[in-house]
């Protein structure tokens, strides 16, 4: 009973939050609604007994990814309204519903045909974190290591791409120096072109 109440409550909240994210024209509303939706999604993982996944969802998505987006948005002009594409909304909605039905077919097909076997069944006497650790470090060890290397590569790529000209600090320079720097950069932009 409580499970059903929790499911419907969090389902409604998540759908509303993500709809705001998709439909709003303000970037700050979008990122706030997105962070709230991520927290609400972790509730489903706790209901489903995947405690470790729920904790990871909160830490990684609302802790790391949302902070990264908030930090990245400092570079962009987020106060002005986002202009949208002028497409036919009918086409968009029909395509969305069509794709959604396709996804349902993909998920339901193996269940209907009764073709799923539990390869790594959940053991009754250990907790979720322990069971996850046992499966992750035995059967999924190689993908785990590959994912670690991929995250390292992504981190280096992020530092190299976003960290250019970070050595010039705007807070330690004098005002005329900043203005000089700014004009020289603008002339660079005009001269360099695309």
């Amino acid at each position: 009973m409580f499970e059903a109440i929790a499911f419907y409550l969090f389902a409604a909240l998540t759908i509303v939050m993500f709809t705001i994210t998709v439909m709003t024209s303000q970037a700050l509303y979008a990122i706030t609604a997105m962070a709230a939706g991520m927290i609400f999604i972790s509730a489903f993982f706790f209901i489903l007994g995947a405690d470790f996944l729920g904790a990871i969802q909160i830490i990684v998505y609302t802790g790391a990814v949302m902070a990264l987006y908030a930090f990245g948005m400092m570079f962009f002009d987020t106060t002005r309204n986002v202009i949208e594409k002028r497409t036919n909304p009918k086409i968009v909605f029909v395509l969305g519903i069509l794709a959604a039905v396709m996804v349902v077919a993909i998920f339901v097909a193996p269940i209907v045909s009764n073709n799923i076997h539990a390869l790594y069944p959940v053991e009754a006497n250990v907790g979720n974190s322990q069971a996850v650790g046992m499966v992750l470090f035995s059967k999924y060890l190689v993908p785990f290591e590959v994912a670690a290397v991929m995250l390292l590569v992504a981190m280096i790529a992020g530092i190299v791409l976003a960290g250019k000209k970070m050595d010039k600090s705007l807070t330690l320079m004098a005002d005329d120096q900043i203005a000089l720097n700014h004009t020289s950069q603008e002339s660079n932009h005009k001269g360099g072109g695309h």
Partner: protein
Amino acid sequence: MEVTLTHYLVLSTVLFAIGLIGVMRRKNLLMLFFATEILLNATNIAFAAISHYIGDLSGQMFAFFIIAIAASEVAVGLGLLIVWYKRTGKIDLDQMNSMRG
């Protein structure tokens, strides 16, 4: 009134459809990234639900790897977006036609 696997799959599909609508109607690249995160999260819910109802941990493992991929996608994507914004001052999708394709 019991919550079954179908409930979770329907919810996951609704969220996926919302993300897909976002991908199709957004022009700003930052907003497009948000819609991509919604898509990834919708599949994560489906994986966790199937993992619970079949009694198999593989679904949760795939959800972990999807989270790792989403994190690295954000790092690289935001880096590229910042470089592009520094060069051109715009992050609109329609104006990225420097190759005249």
